[in-house]
């Protein structure tokens, strides 16, 4: 009998609030965390909108300490980890006696830190580049820094799979617990909003407004969608082996019951292949969870306003769920958070954990008119009441990667 994996705590810092409950409330109220970016200048770029965390200060979470060794991404992760550790009851004493792991999904960790380090050496000469900043140029820097901060001596791993990184990290951590290699792992993801990645996505014409059509809000599945908004944040869940969670009397929020992933080698060029790959990841997750397609009561979609990817995801859901796809409640929280890249899958997971608790699923903000034959008839801008037993979370990348996970209520 395989070990079961429970979620026993969560932490999140997002443009919509700095706790799972605040995030959920904002999502259900249809508040968007998207506004004119202030972190850097967007002058001359087609898009000016981002899901920026206003006035983030690590002191609020970690006390008055020297944060100089940590860049913004590491600060976000260390602060979020504090929240998830507190929420799950993993005290300093417990951490000194037991190994807690950390698996962080990220697309860039900090391309801003990397670029600044390189540019300083370019301008002033290599002798002026900062050794301390160098240690933050590695892509596992945030995971390493957070482990130091919180004394997390277990498995420490960083997972990169583009915008799928966060969900893939949770899947990876789940696997480590199932195989008995770890009892408790903080798993999730993070990415910061910075000029370098924003510039890149804008030049790739993936942002709403960057492809020279009117720069509206990103509206998943809407006819008018023309790209996503870039967001930022960190989200971590405490995952624990079910038996050891029970032994220590942990409060259980939900179970991660199944997972699946796939890769489309055409990376979107072959539409049918893309759809089939997403559908396969969903089916693998359902099989792994021993959940039948008609036992799924809600879908947390990866859709972020991208023209092709949103359509592919909806069609994949139709392939798996058939006519029932039109009756399953659907949400797409990137309509409000933007595309938070490595954090996104973990944000979706936390959102669904909250939906279980509050029996309410957020709507898809600003959704107005869907395309003809759009299969997900329950997609709506309004929140809806829901008794959730099994929720499906999708995470779909820009370039071929995708994964799905089944979250099961423990109530």
């Amino acid at each position, binding site marked *: 009998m395989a070990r079961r994996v429970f979620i026993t705590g969560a932490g999140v810092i997002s443009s919509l609030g700095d706790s799972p409950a605040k995030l959920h409330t904002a999502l259900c109220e249809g508040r968007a965390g998207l506004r004119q970016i202030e972190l850097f200048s967007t002058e001359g770029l087609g898009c000016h909108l981002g899901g920026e965390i206003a006035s983030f200060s690590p002191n609020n979470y970690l006390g008055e300490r020297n944060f100089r060794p940590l860049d913004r991404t590491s600060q976000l992760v260390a602060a979020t980890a504090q929240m998830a550790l507190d929420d799950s009851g993993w005290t300093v004493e417990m951490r000194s006696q037991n*190994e807690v*792991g950390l698996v962080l999904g990220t*697309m*860039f*960790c900090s391309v801003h830190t*990397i*670029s600044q*380090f*390189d*540019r300083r*050496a*370019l301008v002033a*000469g*290599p*002798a002026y*580049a900062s*050794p301390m900043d*160098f*240690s933050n*140029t*590695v*892509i*596992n*820097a945030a*995971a*390493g820094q957070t*482990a*130091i901060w919180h*004394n997390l*001596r*277990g*498995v*420490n*791993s960083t*997972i*990169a*799979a*583009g915008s799928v*990184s966060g969900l*893939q990290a949770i899947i*990876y951590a789940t*696997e480590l617990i*199932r*195989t008995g*290699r770890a009892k408790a792992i903080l798993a999730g993801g993070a990415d910061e909003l910075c000029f*370098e990645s924003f510039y*890149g*996505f804008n*030049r*790739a*014409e993936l942002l709403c407004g960057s492809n020279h059509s009117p720069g509206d809000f990103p509206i998943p599945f809407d006819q008018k969608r023309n790209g996503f908004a870039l967001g930022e944040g960190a989200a971590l869940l405490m995952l624990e082996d079910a038996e050891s969670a029970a032994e220590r009397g942990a409060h259980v929020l939900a179970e991660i019951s199944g997972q699946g*992933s*796939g*890769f*489309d*080698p055409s990376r979107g060029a072959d539409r049918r292949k893309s759809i089939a790959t997403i559908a*396969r990841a969903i089916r693998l997750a359902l099989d792994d969870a021993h959940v039948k397609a008609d036992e799924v009561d809600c879908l947390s979609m990866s859709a972020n306003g991208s023209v092709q990817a949103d359509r592919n995801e909806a069609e994949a859901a139709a392939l798996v769920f058939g006519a029932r796809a039109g009756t399953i409640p659907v949400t797409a929280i990137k309509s409000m958070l933007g595309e938070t890249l490595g954090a996104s899958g973990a944000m979706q997971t936390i959102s669904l954990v909250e939906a279980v608790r509050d029996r309410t699923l957020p709507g898809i903000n600003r959704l107005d008119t869907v395309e003809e034959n759009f299969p997900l008839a329950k997609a709506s801008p309004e929140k809806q009441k829901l008794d959730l037993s099994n929720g499906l979370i999708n995470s779909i990348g820009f*370039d*071929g*990667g995708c994964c799905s996970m089944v979250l099961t209520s423990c109530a």
Partner: protein
Amino acid sequence: MQTRVVVSGIGTVTSIGTGCEPFWNNLLAGRCGIAPVGSFDTSSYSVHRGAEVKDFDGKAYVSKLDCDSIGRASQFAIAAARLALADANLDLSMLDPERVGVTIGTTSGEPQMIERFDDAAESGALNTVGPEFMRFYPCHVIAAHVASELDLEGINVTIPAACAAGNYAIAHAFDVLRSGRSDLMLAGGSDSFSRITYTGFARLGAIAPEVCQPFDRNRKGMVPGEGAGILVLEPLERAIARGARIYAEVAGYGLSCDAHHMTAAHPLGPARAMEKALEETCTKPEQISYISAHGTGTPTNDLIETIAVKRVFKDAAYRTPISSIKSMLGHTMGAASAIEAAVCALAIFHSRVPPTMNLQEPDPECDLDYVPNRSREHEVNIAMNNAYAFGGNNASLILRKIEA
């Protein structure tokens, strides 16, 4: 009965040879790939040497993707993957592509892409940076490019666990195969020579001016390098069924985190990774017949590593050959532990262990058997591959001989 996972193919791109056989022969011969840096101007640095892969021709391996567009680490990874598949005598068309996955470790991903961005930004020409930056820069493209080139549809993950990344990637592939989620995995690591990495290690004062001499009393540091190592991993039963040549079995692994310092190692973390690997594989320290050291050549690493090995192995530490191939290849970053895992498999298969080169004067504090300067005939039944990284990420992998 748990699935047993074996290494049935090896592909390497290194400064001392591309392809398993030339690489292995040069390694045993003690050839050194360290030379003046050619890929960028080092005149403003106080050090000038690196272990670059000269004369690498990506076009010889990259056919489906546009070789000129993708980054050097992706090209290395694709080359190593193709070489590994050829070495494994595998025809991918015989496999279900949905059940073939890719896990690749890296330190820097495709650093030339951000270096180009920075050059453009500093020269006021950022507008020359186009959509290719986002398409080819993020580090996950390495595993994605391998899968795209080879049409593989299984699990696809890049693990940027810095200098221990190769071991992390192999470890993850091992778990994926054991859980039955794949029939075959291409697992390893890849990194390309990078200005950013070179600058950073130079600023840490970690780069040796001339040679890399791990465990020597006068060792002066590491030497940045580049390359890739990819292993074909598959379940033992499938390998036997197709009559594959099996180099070794991947027996298990251990991961740990120092939670101590970003760049300064601590012996307890590495020791815990070794202990976990031993425990998982039910191996006693005295049963290990070869250790592939992390062995970067920095004064601290080699000392801390020696202390950690002694802590775990006790008296057996003195009887176990341990060598650092970084003395020849330099530090190939995320590729290093993948190439070193390949070396463990080859040492098991050929009953020969590679030397630690440039070890002239023993360090009284590093007093183990480092196989100095000459490869050695030595029956290797069980090998341990150790790797340590920035962020205190430690990974120990255990490979063993498949009984005939």
